[in-house]
């Protein structure tokens, strides 16, 4: 296996864009990425598209060649990867694998989702397709409901407080307000977060990530060739994708995601680094409780300590372990298939020192964690400066 580098990134604004199509968003991000690395589309040797539910949201299937050809990428493998909310991370993992294995040199990854063309109850139904339709979903669960049940159990087992969940939302909104690409650039208070409209008890709208349109792209190359394309490559130091059961009621302990733990262990081992070495992270805060559990599963804190750690400000921009400097899924937005790729873009921007107002002082070793469904897919990536 040979070392792999991210040599280019590109993304669109995240938001609600009624007059944009899935393809136009994906093409915009892909083109920005190729221009960033100064690579013409004709040199791309393989293309992976992370997309969760394009066929349901937009009716279009066969999405990878549909998007690739619009970018000028033809005659090469063009493959769509679906892994629920980890579709983007999984597409990145498979692109990485193909470069690491020596199959190709220049591989493009685009993550995209166009969600806002459907009314909220229909969006909830499409997203529910990432759960167990024959069990939990049939009983009336939605994704917010699954994470609400996770939150209830975490609160019961560890004493995590409503305020701890709200603190995650307040912090991510404070960060996202400074991110020009974010969907909701709005600062919120703890009182607002606590008094939000209930979605699934105890979660309010402020505990839930946004329904967004958007795309993100990265270009991978063997590390030994990175200097041909960029002065500031980011090296994929460690990466792993893992799986688990889809249904929440088949898991032994729902206050932890074993797939995340396992992926983290593998990625840390590959990177020769541990949780204490990670300087900053982009975590999958599809719901506030998910960020708290991610802190625990990644080993940043012990089980049960994610809530107090968040409330104490340890994950804020100025804290010892900044998490979701980008605003996270909560404020930046969560165009499902784009999320895992956007996380990589945001970590790379920090490593390159291009994060603007959100630039962190320590930015040489970062981590991205992408979660699918209620934990059935996890992708953890450790990136470092060259």
């Amino acid at each position, binding site marked *: 296996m040979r070392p792999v580098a991210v040599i280019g990134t590109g993304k669109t604004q995240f938001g609600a864009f009624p007059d944009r199509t899935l393809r136009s968003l994906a093409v915009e991000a892909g083109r920005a990425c190729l221009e960033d690395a100064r690579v013409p589309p004709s040199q791309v040797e393989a293309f992976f598209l992370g997309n969760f539910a394009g066929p349901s949201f937009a009716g279009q299937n066969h999405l990878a060649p549909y998007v690739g050809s619009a970018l000028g990428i033809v005659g090469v493998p063009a493959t769509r990867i679906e892994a629920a909310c980890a579709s983007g991370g999984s597409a990145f993992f498979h692109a990485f694998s193909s470069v690491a294995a020596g199959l190709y040199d220049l591989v493009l990854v685009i993550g995209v989702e166009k969600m806002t063309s459907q009314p909220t109850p229909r969006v909830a139904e499409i997203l529910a397709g990432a759960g167990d339709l024959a069990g939990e979903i049939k009983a009336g*669960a939605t994704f917010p409901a699954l994470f609400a049940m996770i939150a209830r*159990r975490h609160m019961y087992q560890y004493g995590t407080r409503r305020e701890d969940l709200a603190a995650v939302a307040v912090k991510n909104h404070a960060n996202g307000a400074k991110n020009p690409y974010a969907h909701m650039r709005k600062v919120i208070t703890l009182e607002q977060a606590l008094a939000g409209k209930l979605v699934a008890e105890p979660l309010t709208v402020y505990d839930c990530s946004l329904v967004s349109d958007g795309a993100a792209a990265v270009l991978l190359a063997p590390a030994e060739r990175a200097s041909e394309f960029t002065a500031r490559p980011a090296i994929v130091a460690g990466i792993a994708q893992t799986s688990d059961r889809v249904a929440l009621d088949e898991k032994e302990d729902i206050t932890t995601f074993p797939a995340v733990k396992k992926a983290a262990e593998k990625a840390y081992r590959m990177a020769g680094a541990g949780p204490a070495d990670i300087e900053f992270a982009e975590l999958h805060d599809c719901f506030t409780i998910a960020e708290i559990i991610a802190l625990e599963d990644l080993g940043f804190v012990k089980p049960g300590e994610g809530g107090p750690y968040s409330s104490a400000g340890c994950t804020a921009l100025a804290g010892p372990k900044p998490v979701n400097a980008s605003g996270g899924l909560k404020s930046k937005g969560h165009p499902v298939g784009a999320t895992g790729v956007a996380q990589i873009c945001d970590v790379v921007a920090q490593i390159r020192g291009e994060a603007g107002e959100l630039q962190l002082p320590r930015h040489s070793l970062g981590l991205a964690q992408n979660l699918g469904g209620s934990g059935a897919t996890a992708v953890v990536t450790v990136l470092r400066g060259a």
Partner: protein
Amino acid sequence: MKVYTETVVHSAPEAFLKDAPYQIAIVVRDDGSRVTGRILGERVAIGDSVELVESRDGVPYFQKARSS
């Protein structure tokens, strides 16, 4: 049978709009296995004992056990 976790769903999917708000729970059966079902009547909390009322279309409906 006891409640392992629960939530009251306010923002329902298309198919259950007319039911909202409604409570769902993961219930631990006496043999230790778990199932996700609906709660009828009085709201329940983690640790509460529940009993099966009926199964409709493969979905179990529980209510708070009268003895608890």
